[in-house]
């Protein structure tokens, strides 16, 4: 049976989420594996969300926010960049496959790019197979 990864996407309202909308209204095709959660700003993201997502069985986590300099709230994504960089380092040092966690800056007008990124990330995660390290499994 073909493995279909479960990917959690967390996107900021003003840029990436709107960009995703644009991809939708322009009928761009991209894989259905991404489950999207909307936050008002990428700086809302608590690194524990990412750890939790992997524990709950996510095979990949994709974070989307405004380009640094273009944050709706001015500087939110500047803090988020540092936070998510450390989050990435934690996951790597813990031994999780680096390709499972990605951060991309995608603006509201970049519908194409959104579709590209999701397509590429989904394929990459698919290639890595199911995430088993952090995933919590219970027998029966």
């Amino acid at each position: 049976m073909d493995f279909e990864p479960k990917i959690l996407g967390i996107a900021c309202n003003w840029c990436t989420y709107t960009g995703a909308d644009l991809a939708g209204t322009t009928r761009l095709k991209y894989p259905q594996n991404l489950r999207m959660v909307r936050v008002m700003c990428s700086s809302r993201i608590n690194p524990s969300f990412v750890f939790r997502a992997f524990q709950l069985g996510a095979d990949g986590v994709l974070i989307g926010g405004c380009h640094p300099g273009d944050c709706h709230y001015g500087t939110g994504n500047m803090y988020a960049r540092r936070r998510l960089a450390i989050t990435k380092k934690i996951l790597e040092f813990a031994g999780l496959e680096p390709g499972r966690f990605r951060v991309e800056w995608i603006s509201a007008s970049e519908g194409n790019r959104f579709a590209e990124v999701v397509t590429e990330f989904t394929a990459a995660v698919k290639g890595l197979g199911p995430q088993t390290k952090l995933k919590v499994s219970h027998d029966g």
Partner: protein
Amino acid sequence: MLKKIEQGKLSELVTALIDQGPLYAPVRDDRGVNFQSIRSPLAVTLDFYNSVLSPKAVFFPQSEDLISYRLGRGEPTAKTTPLPTAQTILLGVRPPDAYSFFLMDELFLGSGIVDPYWQSRRDLTVVIGYPFINQTPDAVDFYSSLGISATDTRGSDIFLIKKNGELLFKGLTEKGNALLAKQAALFTEATGDDEQYYLAALAQGAAIVTRNLDCDPKRTASKLENLFADTAFWEQMAAACISCGTCTFVCPTCHCFDIADENIFRDGARRRFWDACMFTDFTLEASGHNPRSRVYQRLRQKVCHKYSYYIRNFGVISCVGCGRCTRSCPVNIDIFTIIAEAMKK
């Protein structure tokens, strides 16, 4: 009865025993010695003073599922976890720790409600005690002060003693003798010489005396009751305490627990697990009020529970002087000192 095996044959004995049921014994790794469920016979060690964590987890696991359940679509299902049924052996327990099982029996069996989980494990387990014979007591141990001897038989079903490349096993209770009889094929009969050696070793061990603490139960309970309101005393005793929970978790007689329903998605369990009165939120109420919000209040609770309240409830001090709390405390708080200071007041 008295049986023996060659020390070199210990792993064979262990192999045979683990074939028949769970065996818990001391295992050494680069961190120290702790009791573990044995899978590899070579892992067992008898070269140690005492374990870092107490063996109470054999009867009172740190985490225990009481009911497992599945929620979600349709009828939720729940299944009571069956009580254990496997005959178990606990090998290598020092007398103060074996005696701690007796102390905990007072609470888990003798306080009006019987704890079926504790009871079933106690009934199913044969305790092979490992008395102190010619070890110098660790400087922080004080079990002698509590009326516990280095060769105390209370709590043990069998005693294990080393003798010149051999291991002697002495049945102390019906349960212990029954195990030795059942497993007769694994042992050889002891000789008269072995009997003599056993008695001499026991006498030698009984002469071991630890540092001394004045802690007659009635007087100690009284004194601590009178000291309850002496905030300055308790603040001084608790000045260094960081209120972690390490002492509670290594202690053979601490037994507070919490019960919670824990699940990931739909599968979960109602679980019982160790709690600690030293935790900041131990007495935190839903309203937000915390009657023991200060460290000194929590330390006072811990000490008084062992040396005052337990005496009022069960007539005995709930401490066996094993020294673990002192050894593991990140700031070296010594309960011996606290009681000594209290008795001086």
